[in-house]
């Protein structure tokens, strides 16, 4: 189930009227999408579960704001992103990823095709929370750096720097994986 899965107008209306089963249906339709997104962004199962709960508590109090029922999934995704961003802002120091020492002395000329051998979570684990957020919001969600800067409370140029650094790290991670023959997670 993804955020693109439609949710019927009637189910949303029933939930708005206090129908527990209808709200349970909404939860079950989108829980996996919310959890996956939070996990990818935070790389922490406990934090992802907290976000899952937080998102559905927020949705519960904001259901009346839904205007376009056909875009319910997108609306919910936006709430999920905002919860994750709030979490990253509150826990920045704990979400450091691999420090620069892991990449010290390396050049960035490694072939990018080795990147294809890594799975998504192995790549994301090597980035800090902020780097993941900038990379995902810019590359996947097509936010502008200005929007990202405003969401994360940083400057636009800082967002660009973080984005560029995260791409460099991805490239380096792929290279380290290629030459060490070990999983990226083992650098932790």
């Amino acid at each position: 189930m993804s955020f693109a899965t439609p949710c019927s107008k009637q189910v949303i209306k029933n939930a708005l009227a206090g129908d527990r089963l209808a709200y349970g249906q909404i939860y079950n339709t989108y829980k996996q999408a919310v959890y996956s997104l939070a996990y990818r962004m935070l790389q922490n199962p406990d934090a992802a579960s907290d976000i899952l709960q937080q998102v559905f508590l927020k949705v519960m109090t904001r259901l009346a704001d839904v205007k376009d029922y056909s875009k319910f999934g997108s609306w919910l995704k936006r709430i999920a992103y905002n919860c994750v961003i709030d979490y990253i802002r509150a826990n920045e120091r704990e979400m450091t990823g691999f420090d620069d020492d892991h990449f010290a002395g390396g050049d960035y000329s490694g072939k990018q095709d080795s990147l294809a051998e890594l799975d998504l979570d192995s790549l994301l684990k090597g980035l800090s929370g902020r780097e993941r957020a900038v990379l995902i919001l810019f590359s996947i969600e097509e936010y502008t750096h200005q929007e990202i800067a405003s969401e994360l409370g940083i400057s636009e140029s800082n967002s660009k720097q973080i984005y560029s650094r995260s791409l460099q790290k991805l490239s380096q991670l792929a290279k380290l994986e290629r030459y060490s023959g070990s999983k990226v997670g083992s650098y932790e």
Partner: protein
Amino acid sequence: MSKTSSIQDLFISKWQQAEERPVPNMADQSVEKSVLDAFDKHHSNVTSNLSKSGYGWFYAMAASLFIAVFSWQFFYQGKSINGAPSQPDTVLVLAINESKELETAFEQLRLQATSEFVYVQKFQLEKELILINSKLADAYRHQGSLQDKLQLWHQKNKTLSQLNALLAKTESVHATHI
């Protein structure tokens, strides 16, 4: 530039290909239950002033009072021979007293109307408080170490302070986004 865009393209394709991660069963059950309980509570709040949340909080306060009484009892049992409390005991007493004051303050604030944004945060902090109360009850029941109890009282005070701060400035709290 072309190199960075090829890394970005590879990343995007990985993102699109990656399968969604299922919610771990334990987390799924507990989150679903707490979300649906909150949903019931939220809707019963609308229809009744004497809501389930009121009863829930009543039980939490009763448990808290129970713990306070027991903690004082244990404190006096644990007095040193010359009758004066030792250093850790004194810190514990201070923490318990602080807790009482914070609870009184919270009691005055908790029924005021809150925005939806504050409601979610309040719900989570109250949940945390109930969990700490239950840990405290366990610590006293099983005669846990003074250090553990002290730590729990500090946690409780921190949570109560957060709740009070949240509710005290409820009018000025605005969600920056949904």
